[in-house]
Every structure is written in C-alpha cells, then in structure tokens.
C-alpha cells in the first residue's frame, strides 16, 4: 500500500469516529467513536513513520503514548459513565444537560 492509501484509510476511520462522537446518543457509542479517532491518528503516525521518516522510532513512540493515553482516558470515561448510570439510570447524551446556561 502506498502512503496515500494509508492516509485515506486513516481519514476514513477518523471521520467515522468523528461522526460517531457527534451523532450518537449513547455515551458508550461516543466512547467507541473517540477510540476510533485515536486509532486513526495512530495509523496515520505509523504510515508517516514507515514511508516518510528515516528514523523509525518517532512514530512508534507517538503510537505507544497514544495507546497509553487512550487506555487512561477510557478508564476515566467508563468510570464516569458507570457513576452516571448508577445515579440516573440514563446515559443518553441529550438528557445530560446540567451545564446548560
């Protein structure tokens, strides 16, 4: 596969993830979308790492950091979702408007 192919693949995955974040009502679906976006970003980094950059370590370091951050973020996100569900029995984004001005 060429670089262009990987970039397009990454863009497609990112867009799918973005759409999922913006349009899904279920918080877990939003979480899945966030994961998709992060993985698309990782794919992008690795593509550039393979085809453009001479030093193969940089891209890999980025991806490792992203994976670690994603894990931490998922942990926090899921604990918030669990807490919300216990309190409200509802994780529909449209009903969580407590910060409304």
């Amino acid at each position, binding site marked *: 596969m060429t670089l262009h192919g990987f970039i397009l693949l990454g863009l497609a995955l990112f867009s799918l993830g973005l759409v999922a*974040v*913006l349009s899904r009502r279920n918080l877990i679906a939003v979480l899945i979308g966030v994961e998709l976006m992060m993985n698309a970003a990782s794919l992008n980094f690795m593509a550039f790492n393979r085809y453009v950059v001479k030093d193969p370590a940089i891209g890999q370091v980025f991806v490792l950091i992203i994976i670690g951050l994603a894990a931490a973020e998922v942990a926090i996100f899921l604990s918030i979702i669990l807490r919300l569900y216990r309190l409200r029995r509802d994780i529909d984004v449209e009903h969580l408007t407590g910060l409304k001005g």
Partner: protein
Amino acid sequence: MDSLTLVLLATGAPLICFLICILALRPHPGAARVVALGGMGLSLFGSVTLLLQGPVEPLRFLWFSSGEIQLQFGFLLDGLSLLFAVAVALITFCVMLYSIGYMAGDPGTTRYFAMLSFFAWAMLSFVYAVDLLQVFIFWELVGLASFFLIGFWYEKPEANAAAKKAFLMTRVGDVGLLIGLLLILPLSNSFDLPHLLDPQAGLVRLALPATLTLITLLIFVGIVGKSAQFPLHTWLPDAMEGPTPVSALLHSATMVAAGVFLMARLHPLFMASEQTRTVVLCVATFTAILASTMAMVERDIKKVLAYSSISQLGFMLIGLGAGSLFAGVFHLVTHAVFKALLFLCSGVYIHHLATNDMEEIGRRGGRQLRLTTAALVIGSAALAGVPPLAGFFSKEEIFAQLGHGGLGPFAIGAFAAAFLTAYYTGRMVFLVVAPAQIEETSHDHHGDPQPWVMLAPIVLLALGALTLGFFGSSIAATLGVQLVHHSLVSMLPAIGVVALGGALAWFDFGRKSAPRRGFITRLAALETLFIRQWYVDDFYRTIVVRINTALAKTMHFIETRGLDAGFDRLGFNTLGLGALATRLQSGWVQIYTGGAVVLLGLVVAYFGLR
C-alpha cells in the same frame, strides 16, 4: 437721633419682633401682641421722626460684587420714601391695635402678629430702599408675607387657593419686573436709584429710547401684578379670604400700593417714554372703570372695597401716567387712610354681625353701631370724592393733571370711573344705613361690639380722612413739588360727577321707597358681565390653567413613556441579548465538541490555504 439709627429702628424693630414671636412666643399670644405692637410703635416713632427731620443724603453699604457689578444695600431718605413710610407705619400700627380686638381668641394669634411684623419690616425696607435690587428683594418678601397672611386660616381650602393665586399672579408680574431690572444692569452696572434717576447721568441718558421703553414696560408688568391692575387683578378680590385687618393693611393701603410707589419712585424714567405713558394710561383708565363696574353689583362688603382698591389704584396710576408725581402720591396717601378706615369699619360689622353681605349687615342692624357707621360714612365720602374730604382733593389733582392737553379720552374715562365710584360707594352706604327693615334678633355678642382697640384706630383714621385733604401743600413741599392752586370753577366737573353718582345711589337705595336694586339690573347683559367679573377669571381658569396642565402632562408623558421607557427598553433588551447568548450554552457536550471541530477546521483551512 441720627438718620441711620432712626431708619434702622423703623425697619429693624418689626423684624426683631417677628423673630421673637416666631421663635419664642408660640405659647404666649398675649405677649406676642404686646411685643408686636410695641415694635410697631417704635417703628412708627422712627419713621415720623425721620419725616420731621426732612430729606437727607442716602445711606449705602456694599452688599456684594460679582465681576463688574456692585450691589448696594441702604436707605434712600427723600421726601417720597419718608412720606409713604409714615403712612405705612401709621396704618400698620392702627391695624395691629385693631387686630388685638378682631383676632382675639384665634389660636394662631402669635403667628398672625409675627407675620404682620414681618410684613412691616419688608414693606418699610421696600419703601426706604436705595437700590433697585433691594427694592425687588423686598417686593418679593412683601408678596411672601401676603401669601402667609391671606392663607392665615390655612385650614380653609378657599384661603389657600386665594393665597396661591395671589402669589402666582404677582409672580408673573415679578418676572416682567425682574427682566426689566436685569436689562438695566448692562447699561449702568449698578442698581443705585439716585444714580439711575439722575437727569444728567442716569438711565435716561444711558439707554436708547427703545430700550428705555422696553425696560419701563417690563417694570410696569410688575406693577400691574402687584397693584392688581387689568389683566392681573383677579387675585385681589379672592384675597379677601384673609382676615379683615390684613385686607385693610395689605390689600388696600400698603402692599398693593407698592406698585404705585415704585412707579412714583421711577417717575422720571416713565416720563421719558411716550409709549409707556400711553400704555400706563390705557391700562389704568380701563382698570378704574372695569373695577368700578364690578363693585356696583357686588354684595360682599369686602369685595366691594377690594374692587374699589383696584379702581383707585388705577386712579393713582392715571395721575402718575398723566405726568403729575404729586397727584399720584397724594391720592396714594389719602387712599391708604380712607380705604383702611373702610376696611376696619367693615371688619366691625363682620366681627359683630357675622356676615359679609351688605344687605344682611343692614338688615341685622349695622347702623346701630353708631361710631362705626359714622366712620363708614366719612370714609365713603372720602372715597367718593366728596369735598372737603381727603379723597376729593387728591382726585381733583388727578383730574387737573388730565386737563393738561392731549389726554381727553383718559379724562373722560376717569370721570366715568369717578361717577361709578360715587355710585357704588353710595350704594354701599345706603344698603348698610338705610335697609328695608331691621331685624330684632339677638346675636351672640362676645363682649362689647366695638371694643376700644378697634374703635381707636377707626376714629384716628376717620380724622385723617376728614383733614388730610388740607395737608396737600405740605405733602407737595415734602415731595419737592410746587402746588398749583385750582380755581373753584375747574373743580366743578369733579363735584358734579360725584353729586350725580351719589344722587343716583340715593335714588336706587337711599330714599324711603327705593327699589334697592341698582339701575344696572335693568341691563341684564351688562349686569351679568359685571357679576362674572368680565369673565377674566373664567378665562384664566379655562385657558391658562389648561395650557399649564397640558404642558405638564406632555412633559410628564415624554418623561415616562419617552425617555424612561426608552432607556428601560434599552436595558431590558440588553438583558434579552444576554438571554439569546445563553442559548449557545445548551449543556450538550456534542454541540460544544461540534463547535470546536468546526472552528478547528476553519483555522486549519486558513493556515493551510495561505
């Protein structure tokens, strides 16, 4: 004693009595009366002594300076002020003495005597004033005293309305006066009277003729207000709501005479302007006739005397306008005496018989109060101009001056007014003295109907009315004017007119089988016109009051619906904008995220495309 001490005594004694009464003597009406009367006595002493000492140089003190203007405070002690001050002081003293009887038992006695003292101070300071601004200040203060005295029984709505009307109408006049005075200032940088009246260097030389006319006309507006001439005359009949001694003092003899006095004081200025003289003569003659017509259909004795004052003030202004200082001032002095006398007599009737209506007074036996009735007759004769009483001589001077060329129409008007004066005066006398029948009802006599405190002033003033006419030459000498003797023949028209009026009054009211209805009742339309006071008051009530209310309503509308509403709208709309803005804060995470993404995209695009 030197002049300064005397004049300070004359003006200051009443002031101190006012302060003492108002600050300390509220609970002691008896003491207040004594203090006030004592102060007035001292004042009278001061003014009489000053008169006897004759005219002296003016006394001045610098009061303030602003920029180039310097204003003085002081005393002008020439013949005119010395003479009138004695008249004022004497009549005030008489009225105060009389008031002790008339106002006995009134809960507001202290306040009454305090205000009378205040008035005396203001009036005398006005008369002796050396500076036009000082004149204006005391002119206003005299008006203030009048307001509080007319509205003395302030729990009566009619008294309050009358006081307010008097104050406002004279204020309108005062506006004219003030503007006129302020126009003088740029020309001469001072208000000093001797300086302004100086024939060589005074206002006559400093001002253009047109300016002088404007200034004198504006001052005349003030005079019209204060001396109750047409069209600012309607406050005076209403002012009869005040106690009768107040009417005697303020609204016949002194305060309303202040306007005439001012014209006498500024006589050289008025004489210098032909147009102003004509205006003065027109207004004064018209007023004299107008007021006489209203007097001849009036039933309330005080109102008859009020209209009569308006009319006689017109006479004085005719005399001054025609060119004779002496004529105007002589009549001013004689009128003060006999009009005060008439009011005090009416006060006895009102006090004892509890009615103001002349027919009622007659019917309840007014004529049985012999001394008062005799004094009434004397005063009326003086008013009508019966020789040899005071009024005859003073009126004669006015007619004589009118004979000096070119004043034909005014002379005719003056004679007509004199005729009417004799008629309504005779009517008044006959209604009281010769009623159809006298009722034999007993009235609640609280003590002696004619206590000596009320009779003594009446007797004194009656003597004055009888004899003052013969003092013409001394008065003229004090004023520094030469007296011209009139032949008997030239006096005949005046005598004739008086006789005619008196005869008609006798015919209508006096003789045994008199119909006791004026001849005017046969001319119903005219009678209505006179009774309705020529609709002047109605005009004011409908037009002027309406305009005022309309203006106030409009501005109020602008304020509440226009300005206030506008700014409120601005404020609430700003709040509304804020409410709009809060809609962005939906609380939806995804909206916020979407917004961020869009913005980020825009930024990237911007930098990418650059």
